[in-house]
């Protein structure tokens, strides 16, 4: 599940990763190999690649019913270009506020309501704060994509 706005430069790094992953996944399905971008092949095929938004409950509703989910998102709280993968449980649980309930709290709520919720890991990619409108990524964030892509494929193949 990639989050972000592809029309807001680095904010859309998660979507950019997902779209590249889609190409690799499709190529891997066809040939069992990676693609010319030298990424590793995706060996686990029962996956879905989704694009989404920030909101906790809507995000939780969209991923309810799956077994495992990797959420890929831009992280202005990380140095630009840094890639970090961690469990959702490492994020602070936050009280509900305005539109966002926090993914952790929202999943907990869905579980309380009897919904099947997935185990979630986060793949965060550091971006500079306040990205402007536009397409494409800054060099630092573009440079981090291969690392992040490998991490996503590692997760998929685990």
């Amino acid at each position, binding site marked *: 599940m990639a989050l972000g706005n592809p029309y807001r430069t680095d904010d859309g790094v998660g979507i950019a990763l997902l779209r590249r992953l889609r190409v690799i996944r499709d190529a891997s399905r066809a040939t069992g190999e990676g693609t010319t971008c030298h990424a590793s092949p995706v060996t686990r095929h029962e996956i879905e690649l989704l694009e989404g938004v920030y909101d906790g409950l809507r995000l939780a509703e969209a991923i309810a019913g799956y077994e495992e989910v990797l959420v890929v998102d831009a992280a*202005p709280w990380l140095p630009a270009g840094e890639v970090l993968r961690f469990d959702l449980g490492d994020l602070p649980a936050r009280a509900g506020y305005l539109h966002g309930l*926090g993914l952790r709290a929202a999943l907990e709520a869905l579980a309380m309501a009897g919904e099947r919720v997935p185990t979630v890991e986060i793949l965060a990619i550091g971006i500079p704060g306040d990205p402007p409108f536009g397409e494409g990524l800054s060099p630092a964030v573009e440079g981090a994509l291969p690392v992040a892509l490998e991490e996503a494929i590692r997760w998929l193949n685990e």
Partner: protein
Amino acid sequence: MKKLTIDPITRLEGHGRIFLILDDNGKLVDAFLQIPELKGFELFCRGRLAEEMPQITERICGVCPEAHHLASAKCLDACFGTEVPEPARLQRELFYNVYIFSDHLLHLIFLGGPDLLLGADAEKAKRNILGILEAYPEFGKKVVRVRAGAQKILERIGGKAIHPVFALPGGVAKPLSEEDRAFVEERSKAMVELAGDLIELFHEKILPDPSFQSYLLAEELGFPTHYMGLVDGNMAPNFYDGALRIVSADGHEIYHGPAADALSLIEEHVEPWTYVKFPYLKEYGWKGLVPGADSGVYRVGPLARLNVAERMATPMAQEEYERYLDFFGGKPVHAIFAYHWARLVELVQAAEVTLALVQEKTLTGVEVRGELGEPGEGVGVIEAARGTLFHHYRLTPEGLVEFANMIVATTHNAAGIGLSVKAMARHLAEDGVWDESLLNRIEMAFRAYDPCLACATHFFPGEMPLVVEIYGSDGELKVRIGR
């Protein structure tokens, strides 16, 4: 293991900020709400293919992509001078009423709901969706289940789970199959049933609460402004389409006519302390950030829609509307906290309209695209859950976007929200003690509008943070509370 420190306050551009200014005795002197606004989106749209706009604009807001998607499609209908065939119009309107239901439900129960159902003084850690599910387990489960069903409808018609792709200039991408229609009908019955349960809950648990009643009836929390919203031919609120009506603070009609023409009635005022522009009614002029019959300040959203309407479109909603008007002694209703009740009335109408639309025989008709004319200029107006949304584009002869402008609901309401924060702070600030509970009550005035600060941004932790800053008479920051 690397320690994570995630502080949403580091993304200040995306924050709403409430400033409270105190005198030497700790009494409130003034209060402001600062709403962030990211610049440049309209510029970014220039040169894009017109047909891309419903997909591009829905990305500016993670909260109501459905509203931007359809406002944009309606704007393109106007730009291309096309007539939308009946099956496509019904499909869009069906989708849109499900969105209104789902969005209002989310706010009523899980976002604004904790303040109403658990009380403003409830333990901070419990004032959220989990607290609601603990306090009302069976009801909470039902809400989650029905909302999930509504989300599935949006996915089924919209073509994607989160960002819909179905609306195109002149109509929609494909006819609704009988299988999909039956899928929607089954879930819409549950929506209507839940709407009835919500009315019951509201009258049993929320309305009798003395604290809520005091907020509804307090004079200073019911300041007069003008109101704007779409109405159908019977003067009932219509979320998807209709004529625009503006009524004054004393209830007389200022405008009732084509929604697109209303843009000429509005001007925007700029203040040096906030990025947001304050729209006001040109006829009244900008008299400052003040309420009243002479001020140009107007409000949009559920409260406004019920003030501009003469009736509701469906029976159960009409019954609840009458109870609402009886309580306040007629229109216009100015109370900030009446937004919640008005939201409930609208939710009921949205559920009933959904069930009625899904039983329309022409809904599954196969003619779903009108013929496009030459590209030109147009305006699309829709009622987003939080209020009137305008999209205005001008296209080149090649069908590229030459000009794009959008006025979103929270921008219309910026002045009203600011006035509400100030009114609530004044209402509460008698003893000059600024604790967490008091600050939550001030935020309740803000939350009543279900404001969306999210356009063009998103926050991974899933929150839309608000910062409250309290300044002394010397201009020094005394307290800063961020969530």
